[in-house]
């Protein structure tokens, strides 16, 4: 079964009397434990696709199936619950709650989706340990480096054991060495857990961490191999 299936998805915005297609008849299939790099220039529709795949945005037409659930027609409440349990996000800029420690940033995801506390604590500790943050779990985000913050965000994205993880420019604020370390971690963590991932990036140096690269231009997808 595919982790993500986008079929003929369009997202159209109305601007004055003009329709602008941010995503134009996009079709994409991401298999279980597959990592897809979505590459394209700024404004090409990468984030729109990621948002539709993650239930942050509804498509104008087409179908979006995640882990066997067609979420295209989900209402707001159902989409919120879906985001909490089925997908993990790492955003480009804002990723952590500033008044929560690294560990609490992971635990809050479990709390808000009603997961039991004991197993959640164990999982958070295990994830932080794997991400090399065992000694930093009590630190607040402003006491962590950029790379450490991004690692905490990866842990948060994987906290609720999602089938699909979505990464929006996860290395854009990092230098090359740190970026490669983060990408290595992403690959290791998602592969170990059998999680599918879509990684949006404009940095072609990072695409070799993916199993497959998909290019997007003006809202249209074009597969370009691994």
């Amino acid at each position, binding site marked *: 079964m595919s982790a993500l299936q986008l079929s003929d998805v369009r997202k159209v915005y109305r601007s004055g009397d003009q329709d602008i297609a941010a995503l134009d008849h996009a079709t994409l299939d991401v298999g279980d434990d597959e990592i897809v790099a979505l590459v394209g220039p700024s404004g090409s529709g990468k*984030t729109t696709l*990621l*948002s539709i795949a993650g239930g*942050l*945005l509804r498509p104008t037409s087409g179908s979006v199936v995640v882990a066997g659930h067609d979420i295209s027609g989900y209402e707001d*409440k159902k989409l*919120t*619950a*879906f*985001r*909490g*349990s089925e997908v*993990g*996000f790492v*955003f*480009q*800029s*804002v*990723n*952590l*709650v*500033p*008044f*929560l420690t690294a560990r*609490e940033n992971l*635990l*809050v*995801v479990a*709390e*808000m*989706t009603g997961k039991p506390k004991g197993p959640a604590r164990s999982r958070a500790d295990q994830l932080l340990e794997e991400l090399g943050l065992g000694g930093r779990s009590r630190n*607040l985000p402003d006491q962590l480096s950029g790379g450490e913050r991004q690692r905490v965000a990866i842990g*948060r*994205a994987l906290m*609720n054991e999602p089938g699909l993880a979505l990464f*929006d420019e996860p290395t854009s604020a990092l230098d090359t060495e740190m970026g490669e370390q983060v990408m290595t971690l992403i690959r290791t963590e998602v592969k170990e857990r059998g999680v599918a991932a879509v990684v949006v990036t404009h940095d072609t140096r990072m695409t070799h961490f993916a199993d497959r690269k998909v290019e997007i231009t003006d809202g249209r997808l074009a597969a370009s191999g691994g």
Partner: protein
Amino acid sequence: MLAWNEMRRAKVRFGLLCGAVGLLVFLILFQQALLGGLVTDFIGAVDNQDAPVLVFNDQARSNVEGSFLFPDQAAAIAGVDGVASTGFIGEGTYTVETGGEIRDAVMFGYELGGLGAPSSLVEGRLPAAPGEAVSSAADRDNGFGIGDVVQIVGDGGPTIVIVGLADDLRWSVAPTMFASYDTFEAAQRAVNPQSSVVFPSLVGVQPVDGVDIGELTDRINSEVDGVEALSRQEAVDGNPGVQGVSQSFGIILGLAFLVVTLVIGFFFMILTVHKARALTLLRAVGASSRYLVKNLLVQILMVLAIGSFLGVVMTVALLRLGPSGEVSAKLDPSSVAATLLGLVVLALIGGLAAVRRVLRIDPMSATSGAGQ
């Protein structure tokens, strides 16, 4: 978890808010205590006497000082169906000498063994003969303690020995004595030697068992000319002094309640805008609006709980340790509870703007890092 963690990581910010709410709660409770004490000092004597119905002259407009009843009116009241017994009650303010000092004091006279006796005796006994009185316990150290002798100043003014003390017995914020009706008449004659007759200020009425007080007062008012019969509570509430004081304090208290609502509302609105990016992130990763609103309301209630605790502690401390003046302050637990409940409701109303702001968060903003 979210609510508590934010509060403990922003101790100064939330501490200042709790302090501000605490001071406002203190202001409200202390004023209520002052109002309670003042009202009790105004009307305690009527509230704590045992006649369930009091009949006034209808021209007096519930003012004891302005009321007097003629003997034929008193007889007509006694003849109304449903009246078990009646008794004369007199009231006057006098200059007295006690403990070597000249003071003003109020005396209520009632027919010993009949209606109008004080019902809140805490020490000593009720008067058994003319020249004896029960006095307000709050004035025991001001020449009105048991065994003190109080002399009504005037030509032939009676001498009164205090034989008992009763709580909350003051009238018009003055030391108050309850003596026999004969003693009252003697005092009236001493201060007004020209008067040939002393009329009672009020007639106390005891209804027949099973007769409704409201129905009986209606019956007295319709059958006896020139009188206004009131239940004890109506007489207390209708006192002109109490109404004026309550209205003035009511305005001040109303403003204080409004300030609490606005302070909490503004604070949480600013806080919500300040952390909009974090809230947007949480919405994006699956937090429901309900979860975020619940945390906001928990914070409001926690701030109010801590502020209320501080306010109650400050009020109780001041009432216990502060200087005792002429006016006593009285904190009634039931009105404290009602006030705190009212503050909870107002604080939640104050937080509505912040709740609305939370409900308007668009999780999609997390992808652009906006969230503002």
